[in-house]
């Protein structure tokens, strides 16, 4: 925002709130200040206040280490302020200038002592491949190819060395392409030309990263290209302070990191709720009618088609879509299903709330219907008033601001880190279908006298199996994003799951569920740690979609049986309360466990396996992996 630096007296209000110890409202105002005036000066203000209140605020924390070949320090406050606006308290370790290789190799380096959740390897083409970058014209074809290979091998060695020393996520910046190749347009004619070699290096780095768990590529080449190489760079700052990125793009760099921090921290949106009038189409259907609203392949309707395409792309990544609109149902449904310019139809939405009720109430109902936490909802509306009202009424909902110009709507959605995913499971791809099946189930449940009758009718089949290569990514994903039915809320990376599963005293089980309406996929994880005759349940979690149908009992019974078979006498469970896991609170009590040390973090529950009545319910069919019946 150009112009007024101090928007209103927000800053003094924030300092007053902090001095009165009101940290939650102070943090809301900090986010508001950041939304209104995101930039370096505001970031300095926000971060200074965040540091005053962060212990009391107790937001989810995330530790990012940045290994770098250039100055990144001025970007750090921007990143932390941006992260705060997504409810994440990021702390940052910046590696020594150009010391990334030593830091990776030395097990005692500051990098590993920091115990990061993720590491960004921010190395630029000009530093890692100076010969290819600046003197390409002088090199023979052979020397140039060898130089490119050397760069690839370096990346490969760093990745391998890092993985051997840490299970944190690793985010590798790939290399930008020369904006002015040494040989001019001739470079475009050359196989193995300068640009081509950098492209080859990037392709190889992607290939190598894919072979490791938790190693990701940040497409720095695309980032620079998106903003324009000449605008992105500031040669004077490079000379002066080894800062290659221009002042007004430091925030773009911070935001690109956020696209990794958000999914890695598990703070993602699982559903996007959209408004209709002037958001999904131009105009107001109730007033302008079918012929009056703007949506189609041409201006001005194209902006809305572009947004719809972005929404459909989200649903292909497993993000649910829902509608929340103040409208007459018939008008809106006609436009949704009959308008020839629409790319998206009512069937693409997992929930619809088209009425005149206030939006906060509708959003609550949508979260309930979709069985996800209200903080997993994102909401987008062209109307600023509606957005602010939702923000005020439902602080947990992620409200996405739209720019004034509808042409920018699609980008606002595509650039939002809440919708980023770093890997896709089969469950993600089929999620919309699964929710359609869920609607049928809910309809069926209402026709039964007793719950047991309904459970029998459901014909549930479960497959319980130790974690395997095929299920590892999904198992880690569930530990990272399951908040509600989760006894301990311990988050694990793929690498940590892999390490545990190879240790004999650990057992990691997953559960897949099917019923007469369809396949739920892999929806639960249990991790058991054997300690002599005791078997401690480190993790027990299930997707809320399948809770309350006795699947959880079947899963716990299987865990107990397997522990008993290994000679354990006792199952030990813990319930670690969080803001969100109330649905799991009574789980152990309901299954015959007795409680010890009721108060505080030491609380635990035990079940003697010998005389326990814990059984798989008779209406659940156990299927062994591969499909055969047990």
């Amino acid at each position, binding site marked *: 925002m150009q112009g007024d630096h101090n928007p209103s007296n927000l800053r003094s209000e924030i300092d007053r709130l902090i001095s009165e110890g009101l940290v939650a409202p102070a943090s809301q105002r900090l986010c508001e200040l950041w939304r209104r005036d995101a*930039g370096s000066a505001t970031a300095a203000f926000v971060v200074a206040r965040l540091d005053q209140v962060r212990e009391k605020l107790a937001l989810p924390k995330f530790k990012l280490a940045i290994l770098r070949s250039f100055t990144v320090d001025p970007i750090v406050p921007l990143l932390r302020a941006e992260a705060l606006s997504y409810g994440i308290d990021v702390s940052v370790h910046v590696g020594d200038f150009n010391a990334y290789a030593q830091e990776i190799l030395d097990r005692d380096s500051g990098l590993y002592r920091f115990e990061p959740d993720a590491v960004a390897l921010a190395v630029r083409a000009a530093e890692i491949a100076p010969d290819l970058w600046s003197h390409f014209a002088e090199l023979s074809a052979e020397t140039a190819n060898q130089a490119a290979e050397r760069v690839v091998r370096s990346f490969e060695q760093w990745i391998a060395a890092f993985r051997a020393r840490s299970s944190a996520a690793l985010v590798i910046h790939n290399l930008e392409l020369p904006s002015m190749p040494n040989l001019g347009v001739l470079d475009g004619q050359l196989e193995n030309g300068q640009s081509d070699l950098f492209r080859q290096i990037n392709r190889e780095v992607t290939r190598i990263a894919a072979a490791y768990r938790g190693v990701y590529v940040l497409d720095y080449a695309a980032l620079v290209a998106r903003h324009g190489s000449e605008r992105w760079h500031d040669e004077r700052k490079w000379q002066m302070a080894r800062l290659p990125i*221009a*002042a007004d793009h430091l925030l773009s760099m911070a935001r690109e990191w956020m696209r990794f921090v958000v999914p890695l921290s598990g703070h993602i949106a699982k559903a996007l709720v959209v408004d209709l009038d002037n958001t999904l189409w131009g105009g107001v259907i109730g007033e302008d009618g079918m012929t009056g609203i703007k949506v189609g392949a041409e201006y001005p309707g194209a902006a809305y088609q572009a947004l719809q395409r972005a929404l459909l792309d989200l649903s292909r990544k497993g993000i649910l879509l829902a509608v929340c609109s103040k409208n007459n149902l018939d008008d809106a449904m006609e436009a949704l299903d009959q308008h020839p310019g629409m790319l998206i139809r009512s069937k693409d939405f997992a929930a619809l709330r088209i009425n005149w009720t206030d939006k906060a109430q509708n959003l609550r109902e949508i979260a309930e219907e979709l069985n996800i936490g209200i903080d997993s909802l994102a909401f987008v509306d062209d109307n600023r008033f509606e957005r602010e009202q939702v923000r005020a009424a439902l602080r947990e909902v992620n409200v996405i601001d739209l720019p004034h110009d509808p042409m920018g709507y699609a980008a606002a959605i595509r650039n939002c880190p809440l919708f980023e995913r770093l890997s896709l499971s089969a469950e993600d791809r089929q999620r919309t279908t699964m929710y359609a099946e869920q609607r049928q189930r809910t309809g069926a449940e209402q026709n039964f006298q007793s719950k047991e009758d309904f459970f029998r009718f459901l014909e549930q089949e479960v497959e319980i199996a130790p974690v395997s290569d095929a299920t590892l990514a999904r198992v880690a994903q569930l530990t990272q994003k399951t908040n509600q039915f989760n006894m301990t809320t311990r988050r694990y990376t793929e690498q940590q799951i892999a390490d545990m599963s190879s240790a004999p005293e650990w057992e990691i089980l997953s559960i897949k569920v099917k019923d007469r309406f369809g396949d739920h996929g892999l929806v639960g994880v249990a991790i058991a740690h054997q300690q002599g005759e005791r078997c401690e349940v480190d993790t027990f979690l299930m997707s809320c979609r399948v809770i309350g149908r006795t699947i959880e009992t079947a899963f716990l019974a299987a865990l107990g049986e397997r522990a008993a078979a290994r000679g354990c006498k006792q199952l030990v469970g813990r319930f670690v309360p969080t803001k969100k896991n109330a649905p799991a609170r009574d789980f152990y009590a309901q299954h015959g466990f007795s409680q010890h040390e009721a108060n505080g973090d030491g609380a635990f529950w035990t079940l003697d396996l010998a005389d326990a009545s814990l059984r798989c319910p008779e209406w659940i069919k156990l299927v062994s992996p591969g499909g055969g019946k047990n």
Partner: protein
Amino acid sequence: MSVFEQVRGIASDIFGITPDQVIAASSPETIESWDSTQHLNLVLAIEEKFGIQLDPEEIEQMKNVGIVADIIEKKLSSVSK
């Protein structure tokens, strides 16, 4: 808001002091946190806020807040010409 007023707001954010503690004569001698790191942050915040790029010579000359505002004003008027 005048350029000086805006610079005052930026300086107060960057140096962690209240706006009324920032006057035209405020300098690295009077503001404790104004070191070379914060000088770079001040420069970056100004460039971003005003949409300008400062030359190394100008950055060198920025010895107090009043001079900073003068340099920006000169820069802005030369851009608009």
